[in-house]
């Protein structure tokens, strides 16, 4: 077991290195210029060159990469060009905000999605199944940023119940919770749809297997059968939950932008438009590391739940 985890952790290093090279290359090859973003556009050519030099952007790309990597290895992600804060602080603050939303929206989506999926499977073909499938289709089809805008229009602008934007970093717990509601709902939509569908089909697969028939023949009640089905479907569901949670962390750029929620997605969006390269690289690297760790965690959980996997 530990050997397996250790091997996977070692494998994470080349993965992250590869991710960092791709990130670095893409950020630098994209049109636009970090200095153009922070300097007035009509600054003189000489001033622009001087500033580039001061920030090290005049060096060849491979040199810049090695310098950057050398610092990253020591835990220094550099400083934001726009705010001059240490990137690690920016990323930390944003990550906390995103984690909060990822957890709240995952709890909502997983809870409702698993319940709907199982109900739909056990009532296959009935009205409840159709309703659940309908909700699932809407969840995966409606763009979540659009849903976010609609939520704002209804609950903030028209009804004036909930705030439209921001994270109320100063207003206490109640304020923070109030600010969380709408982005949480908007973010939960897609995973809700995906999970409902996956759970439904996983449960249906298992229900169709002979052992279920055998259980029923043995005279087990529905509730006991249900537990067996859930246990057997769990590994597959875990994989999806893990991935969805990962997406919740990194995939909220649009929702966070719509709600001005100061998480990693919002930070990423800002950094892209400001060409704040150190921030961009830092955020993506940290998110990539998160994905790698999350996948590892899911795999470990899977082996714990289903010992057959460990034997392979």
């Amino acid at each position, binding site marked *: 077991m530990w050997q397996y985890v250790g091997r996977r952790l070692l494998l994470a290093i080349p993965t992250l290195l590869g991710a960092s090279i791709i990130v670095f290359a893409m950020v630098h090859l994209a*049109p*636009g*210029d970090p200095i*153009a*973003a*922070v*300097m*007035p*556009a*009509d*600054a*003189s*050519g*000489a*001033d*622009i060159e*001087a*500033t580039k030099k*001061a920030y090290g952007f005049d060096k060849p790309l491979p040199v810049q990469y090695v310098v950057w990597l050398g610092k990253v290895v020591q835990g220094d992600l550099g400083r934001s060009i*726009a*705010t*001059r*804060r240490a990137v690690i602080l*920016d990323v930390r603050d944003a990550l906390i905000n995103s984690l909060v939303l990822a957890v709240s929206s995952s709890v909502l989506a997983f809870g409702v999605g698993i319940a709907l999926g199982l109900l739909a499977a056990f009532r296959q073909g009935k009205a409840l199944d159709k309703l659940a499938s309908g909700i699932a289709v809407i969840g995966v089809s409606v763009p979540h940023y659009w849903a976010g*805008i609609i939520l*704002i*229009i209804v609950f*903030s*602008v028209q009804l*004036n*119940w*909930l*705030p*439209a*934007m*921001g*994270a*109320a*970093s*100063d*207003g206490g717990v*109640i*304020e923070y*919770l*109030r600010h969380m*509601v709408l982005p949480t709902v908007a973010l939960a939509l897609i995973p809700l749809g995906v999970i409902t569908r996956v759970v439904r089909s996983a449960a249906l697969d298992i229900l169709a297997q002979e052992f279920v028939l055998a259980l029923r023949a043995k005279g087990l009640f529905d509730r006991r059968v249900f537990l067996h089905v859930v246990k057997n479907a769990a590994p597959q569901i875990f994989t999806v939950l893990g991935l969805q949670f990962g997406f919740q962390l990194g995939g909220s750029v649009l929702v966070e*932008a*719509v*709600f*001005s929620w*100061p998480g990693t997605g*919002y*930070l990423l969006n*800002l950094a892209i*438009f*400001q*060409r704040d390269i150190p921030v961009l690289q830092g955020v993506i690297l940290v998110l990539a590391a998160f994905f790698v760790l999350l996948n590892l965690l899911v795999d470990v959980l899977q082996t714990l739940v289903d010992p057959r996997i460990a034997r392979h």
Partner: protein
Amino acid sequence: MTRIVVSIVSLVVALALASPAAAQGTLRIGMTASDIPYTGGQTDNGFEGFRFVGYQIYEPLIAWDLTRGDRLAPLVPGLAESWEVRKDQPTKWVFKLRKGVKFHDGSPFNADAVVFTYESIKKKDAAHFDTYGSAQVTFRLASLTGIKKIDEHTVEFETNKPTSFVPYQLCYMLVVSPAQWQKFKDWRKFAEQPSGTGPFKVTRLVPRERLELEANKTYWDAKRRPKVDKLVLLPLPEPTTRLAALRSGQVDWIEVPPPDSIPQLKGAGFQLVMNSYPHNWTHTLRLDKEPWNNKLVRKAANYAIDRVGICKNLLNDTCIPATGIAYKGHPWFGKPKETYAYNPAKAKALLKQAGFDGTKRPAKAVHLISTSGSGQMLPLAMNELIQKNLKDVGIDVDLQPVEWNTLLTRWRAGFKTADNEGLNAWNISWNFLEPWSGFGRFFHSKSVVPVSVNTMPYLNPEADKLIDEAERTFDIARQNEVLAKLHEILVDDAPWIFVVHDLNPRALSAKVKGFVQPQSWFVDLTSASVTR
């Protein structure tokens, strides 16, 4: 199950009812900037940075009078009480500084503070040189070459040549507190706890989220002590988010409401304030290549644009037609021969005269435009209308939309790069706040890329002469006359397609009282109050 439903419902209701009560006299502003402008003195984020951060925390020696809306905002004494050019040496400017002014940290404002600030921008080897801040402003102080403290309340600036533009440069130099800097010896830390002499002082900075300021109760100009207790600035770059924040009562003031939201906002009781100010939205043409190398074609394009239609139908009257760099009524407007009223027939005739004949030989051009951007208004919709207007008279324009930062980077490099070789124009909006921004950087032959941003390039000895003459003319009224003459020539040469002047729309809650929208890029926030 029922219990769960009940508790969820009661939680939602509790959250909904727990509305926050804003502190009395708090003005909350949703900016278009994507970030809190730099608070360490020489601010960033262009003029929006000066508007909300620079000029609220800090002050220049020479300031803009933003208290009135019925005239172009003039320059007035700021931290300097008076100034004059030495009669015997016209490259030396003596400034008498205001006495009794204190920085937010309590230290006195004096000649040392001015010297310190100047060195933080210009003296690269000084311990207190601010690399980032300097990059923001040093090019605006291009003529200044040195500073000398004469006594506690007098300084002398030296310039590289006799130039009357010095006040137009020093209005951008924001004086910082040397005592506060000494506490940290680090500009980043200074920016977290900044200290200036302005009407507002920073109380809290949450990077990328909010900047909180409080009224400077001991501000030296008693007439301009803020009416509000607190000022909160929020960067809200998404127009829909900004609008929702205003409509849901999370902010009291937003910059640039989307034009199509204006009727709704008015209907819902919000105030919409607008005023003309030195902004122009144009296509800067490439003058060394067909078709825009031909003055007749350029004039034809200017006659082909339905500016009134753009402002009325597309922008809900948040702009006025532009028929030059400046607008009618501006001291630099003069009396141009060409009026560029919408006249497609005249445009076609001019094109024919230039040898382009509609369908048989259309004039073709590729224009680089942005998808959004500061001051760009509604670039896609506006450009599609312009494209149609030009097509109607026989000019085929291919629009190439790129992201704002990309446009700026490519524009700054000029037309003669591999990327830009195929282009004939770019669509960027400008300010013409002072003679350099309005004319010098674009139309002087010495400003050709990469020195500055004459990208076209516009090369006209007559224009050079007039720009130089304006710079040598120390009497402002006389200087304005020279610039008006230059403006007449430029309107006739039409190196740009003049389109519109923005009116700087902002939407305010009905609770905001007393704000005057000046004819400027900047605002005086001290007169505004917020009622409960």
